[in-house]
């Protein structure tokens, strides 16, 4: 590597960090710690390791050994995927890319010392820290519900055991029973997600419990792909799904998990399954790091650096960045921009203008896929939407089938891009 000014600054920073933790930096390489192994973190770790050819020491901290993607977890509920098909391990990141994968929780960040403390006691020094922790839930967002109640009223908005539990509860519903969803307020992870879920629940119920009903209490007057979902619900599941928006009290909701009741604007319903998706905020490690403003971590659009600490980059759902929806695709796209910026800072590699994109596919019923997507660019102020597209109502079956097949290709592609 030729030594230019930027590289000098990078290694200078690494050398400074070395003084505080000489044992862990024997090779003198700049160190990047990535917290969170989802669409943002896994992608960032892989790109940093891959594109720096070993010149950066990359550590990925992720508590779970088997990671289940939130995207496509609705398809598991609908019976279109096995749970195992959306589970991934970090083996290839470690073996083929040389990422140090540490299965532990990050429980503290010291921004002055530039260290991350893990639950197991280890302290990891960093030159750059990438936080991609996803979401946590806002306390008391739905009166009566708390995370302690998540086994009675699952959110299933972090994939894995919660998704399995929700599906099992739906399968155990009495004949003609009621599945209710409490939909979240904006902004939240995966804007079309709750409505794709309702579609998949309807698909499942239609086969095993066709007289069952679905009720959605929603605080929002409008949601993503609304016309497409409503058209699809009418077409495939006529009469099964009832959506209650804020005009009819959908924003005034409380639950009683012990009684299994849902109160919508004073009307109490007995429910057999209650899928509570509460209001969301950045994963709590962002709060611990002191880089949040309100519920989210604001970032510099061109680099995904925290607005509060230039040594920390934040990715994905946890950020407030502007126009990009909180999605796995967005996080993956942002991760590549951040990885490029980090390499540029630490190694002096070339940095190109940040370009972002997103597409969200949703499945409404068998072979009935729809999508919405956009391209984004960084302005000083925010990541701004430049152009976009959305599926149209009334599209023919062949196009919808092709859209669904496209989503299968995307899933294979993005998970390979994340996990190698």
């Amino acid at each position, binding site marked *: 590597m030729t030594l230019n000014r930027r590289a000098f600054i990078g290694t200078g920073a690494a050398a400074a960090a070395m003084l505080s933790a000489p044992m862990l930096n024997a090779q003198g390489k700049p160190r990047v710690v990535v917290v969170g192994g989802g669409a943002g973190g896994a992608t960032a770790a892989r790109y940093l390791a891959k594109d720096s050819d070993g010149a950066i020491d990359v550590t990925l901290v992720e508590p779970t050994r088997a990671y289940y993607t939130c995207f496509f977890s609705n398809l598991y509920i609908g019976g279109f995927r096995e749970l195992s098909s959306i589970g991934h391990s970090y083996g290839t990141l470690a073996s083929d890319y040389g990422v140090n994968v540490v299965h532990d929780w990050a429980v503290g960040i010291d921004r002055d010392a530039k260290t991350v403390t893990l639950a197991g006691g280890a302290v990891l020094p960093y030159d750059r820290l990438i936080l991609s922790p996803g979401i946590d839930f806002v306390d008391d967002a739905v009166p009566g519900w708390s995370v302690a109640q998540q086994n009675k009223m699952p959110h299933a908005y972090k994939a894995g055991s919660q998704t399995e539990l929700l599906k099992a509860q739906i399968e155990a519903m009495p004949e003609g029973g009621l599945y209710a969803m409490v939909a979240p307020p904006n902004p939240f992870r995966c804007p079309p997600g709750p409505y794709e879920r309702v579609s998949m629940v309807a698909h499942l119920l239609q086969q095993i419990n066709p007289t069952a009903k679905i009720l959605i209490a929603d605080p929002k007057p*409008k949601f993503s792909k609304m016309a497409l979902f409503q058209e699809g619900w009418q077409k495939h599941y006529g009469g099964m799904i009832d959506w209650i928006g804020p005009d009819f009290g959908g924003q005034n909701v409380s639950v009683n998990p012990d009684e299994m009741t849902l109160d919508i604007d004073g009307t109490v319903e007995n429910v057999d399954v209650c899928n509570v998706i509460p209001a969301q905020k950045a994963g709590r490690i962002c709060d611990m790091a002191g880089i949040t403003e309100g519920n989210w971590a604001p970032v510099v659009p061109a680099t995904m650096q925290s607005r509060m600490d*230039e040594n920390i980059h934040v990715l994905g759902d946890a950020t407030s960045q502007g126009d990009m929806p909180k999605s796995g695709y967005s996080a993956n796209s942002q991760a590549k921009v951040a990885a490029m910026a980090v390499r*540029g*800072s630490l190694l002096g590699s070339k940095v190109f*203008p940040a370009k972002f994109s997103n597409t969200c596919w949703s499945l409404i019923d068998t072979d009935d896929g729809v999508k919405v997507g*956009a391209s984004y660019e*960084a*302005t000083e102020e925010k990541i701004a939407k430049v*152009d*976009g597209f959305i599926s149209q109502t009334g599209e023919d079956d062949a196009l919808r089938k092709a859209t669904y097949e496209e989503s299968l290709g995307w899933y294979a592609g993005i998970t390979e891009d994340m996990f190698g």
Partner: protein
Amino acid sequence: MFGRVAAGLAALVMSGAAVWAVPIGDPEEGEELFGMCSGCHEVGQGAENGIGPHLNGIFGRKAASVAKDFRYSEGLRRAGADGLVWHLDKLDAYLENPKALVSATRMSFDGLEDPQERADILAYLRRYSDNPQNIPEADPTARPREVELEPEVLALVGDEEYGEYLSSECKICHQADGNDEGIPSITNWPQEDFVVAMHAYKRKLRPHPVMQMMAGRLSDEEIAALAAYFEGTE
């Protein structure tokens, strides 16, 4: 910004600026400029229809579709029926010269020449429409690259006789006596308004597939000729 490393990044960022999205405009400036609209239009929390319709959610909204209780002009109702949707380019064209985009509206506004002022107003209005973070299909908040109508095109002097000849095609649908049932009248139309309107069809700013097709094959000279002719018709 940050330290030296970040300053280096910023320099690279600047060099790439030409290909980057530009914010629509300055919403703070726009809020002040909106003073010239606020006599008729409300926007923001609790906005209601007044002399003109409220402008909440205007981006991505179909023309003449806001409220059951607002009576739109015939021109706007037609534009809405033809498929005019208020995206940034349409709103910009409408603010620049309302008559270019929609004829015969009740909006008594001559237009705003300064593109920056229009951009600022639109940036202000954009705050009160859907956010793409929540509804990804919501209209962009960045300004797209524009195609301007060049001043030479506007300055062309049309050949009235040639215009009369060309107009025979128009008169199949647009009745020569000025009757506007079903299809709008185009007689006695001021030249410049005619020219910008035809170019708006040609650039597919104005909706209506037939007019987009008709205007699409007219040259700049032919549009000028038609404009010269139709201005003189009674």
